[in-house]
């Protein structure tokens, strides 16, 4: 059965919409995928995070693992809050000296960075190092 012109247009729009929604879903999935260690290294280097922080080493700011310890078992709200803090900077959590803002960092990347940091396991007698 042949479709009318309006129906063909509608079908074309529907196909486009479906493709677009599929792309959005795929992108959303990619955004939620945890960073690998290599991706995290690239991200932290490209944005100069490693000029202040390291996984275990105390540089200028707290080591990432210390951050993970403080915010163990984070709620989604905590994750969002940390991501905002990475972009906007702030002070008070680790002393009075503020952390610089990172306005060029996309919120998606900031959230991925926060998630990666909080995924670090603590190091102690009962745990093994992840690196």
């Amino acid at each position, binding site marked *: 059965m042949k479709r009318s012109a309006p129906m063909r247009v509608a079908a074309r729009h529907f196909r486009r919409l479906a493709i677009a929604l599929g792309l959005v879903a795929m992108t959303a999935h990619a955004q939620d995928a945890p960073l690998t260690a290599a991706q995290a*290294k690239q991200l932290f*280097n490209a944005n*100069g995070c*490693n*000029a202040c922080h390291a996984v275990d080493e105390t*540089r*200028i700011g707290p080591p990432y693992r210390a951050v993970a310890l403080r915010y163990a078992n984070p709620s989604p709200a905590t994750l969002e809050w940390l991501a905002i803090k990475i972009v906007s900077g702030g002070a008070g959590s680790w002393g*009075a*000296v503020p952390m610089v803002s990172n*306005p060029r960092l996309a919120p998606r990347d900031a959230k991925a960075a926060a998630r990666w940091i909080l995924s670090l396991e603590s190091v102690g007698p009962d745990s093994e190092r992840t690196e």
Partner: protein
Amino acid sequence: MARATRLAKSLAVAAASASLLLGSSPAHAAALSGRVVSVADGTGVAGALVTLDLPAGAPGPAAITVFSDASGEFRFPDSPDALGRDATLTAAKLGYRHVVLGGSAQHAGASLVTALYLAPVADIASEAPASAWLSRAPAGDAKNITLASCSSCHQLASPRMRAYAAQIEAVRAGPGADAAALEQWRRIVRHEAWRTIVKYMRSLHYSVFPLESATNLDAVDWATAQNADYNFFSERQGEIVARYLADHFPRETASLSHEAYATGAPLAAGPRTVIREFAFPPRALVRELVPAPGSPFLWGADVKRNLIVRLDPRSGELREFPVEYAGSSGPHTIAPDDSGALWVTMVDNDQFGRFDPKTERWRLWTLRPSGLANDASLGGAAIVHDMSIDSRGHVARDRAGNIWLTMVGTNQLGTLQPETGDVAFYDTHRIEQLSPINHLIYSAVLSADRAQVWFSQVNGWVGCLDVRSKRVTQLVPFAEGEGPRRMARDDEGHLWVALFGAGRVAKIDMATARVVAKFDLPDRSAAPYAVTWDERRRAVWVANANSDAIYRLDAKTGEIAVIPLPRRMAYLRQLAIDRDGRLIGSYGNYPEGSGPSLGVVIELGDEGTPR
């Protein structure tokens, strides 16, 4: 009252849409002209920048800027094909804000005519260059040291610095009830915060190298990263910088009075001046762009991506040529020779290269002085920096055929005989309490008789080395922080020196090694990075890191004029002049992503432009 309300509504609309969208006008062949008008009194605004931003991906420049004349009239000389698409037209002048009052461009015969409106503003925070924020900070050695140290890598005061200052002022948790105690506590926090930033900067500059580089922060241990001897400012200078910023960095960073800053000089641009900007990839870090004899292209060095880039200014087309080196190379400085070959110094792995545009092949040499640590990090790197140039900025060889190079890692001058591959290294001037890298030996200029090579040290002096005896024969002292950076030689025996920290230009008589004049730039916080001799116009062009402007210094009269650039964060390092008298440069975008990633070509349309 009703008129005032309508105007206010118009201004509110303008805040949301600061430029005029040309829309889908079918004016492919039309010339574009119009008038910039002040909404305050309806008169034309002279000297405004009118910028046509073209759609991304369109052939040709990414943007074209012209200047309005004394009556506010402007005219674009050519009509790009993209004009009929989603191009936007914006007017700008310091002290004004572009407002959109409705309406659109009108056809008048073959022309497209439009009016652009500017409203005077009291707050110039969003339009002023970074340097404006230091206009009221006290002058002196400490300010010069701060400018020379910080602006080597980024604009001062950049938006991120201002955001950080705001964070410091927002810190809570100190004594709350006693105002005097709170202020005392804040003084401590300010100082500690800026000391922290100095530490951050020492390590941050390692992270701008590619990950595969041995000088990347990921490959450098933390103690090395924080070692001031391997940095461009000493431990003591770092403390001076922190103290100065704590005491004098503006506390109020949300607004800036229009009375605080002015460009301070007459325009060096006129209604026939055209600025064309060309897009580089956002991740590119092309800091220098030069023409080459016999080539229609412009050539840039990309320090981040280990390549040079070729820009066709006719089409905007880019081609990239990776350095043929197995590892990170970090192309830093690029200069042509008389034959049209490109010579490139590299900060990574002690490399110096020659690229032949005809064969598209590289030849590389390794320049590694003895005495360097066996460590590829900055503490053990030669850091091949600048090569000897003549008055046109072309690579120049001494009488023995040697190219002279500044070696930051050892504070030496090196020589390369390209035909034999022979290299040698010679000591320069040394200042107590500075490590070799702290001196930041920078520029090299060969004298007209090719018997002397002049060098500058950003944290030191200017000197002259005799190419036969290989000894330093002349020294020109400068105060700490004045920051002699890039130099140029004119054809009358003078050496012109950009004083990066002091915001001045020095003129040295090369025969006597005496400073015969120092010229104050209109903006002393401009951080003049380089000077370029313009033989045709008998002028020195000054490229500035901080002020989003270029200065023209008349060699005979000492008069200075300014060309404001159409971009903020236009960290300009170097200018070259092509055979048609155009100025060629590139915005630094350093660190990568902090500014516009654009090459810039300026057609002055003055008496020095061939008709």
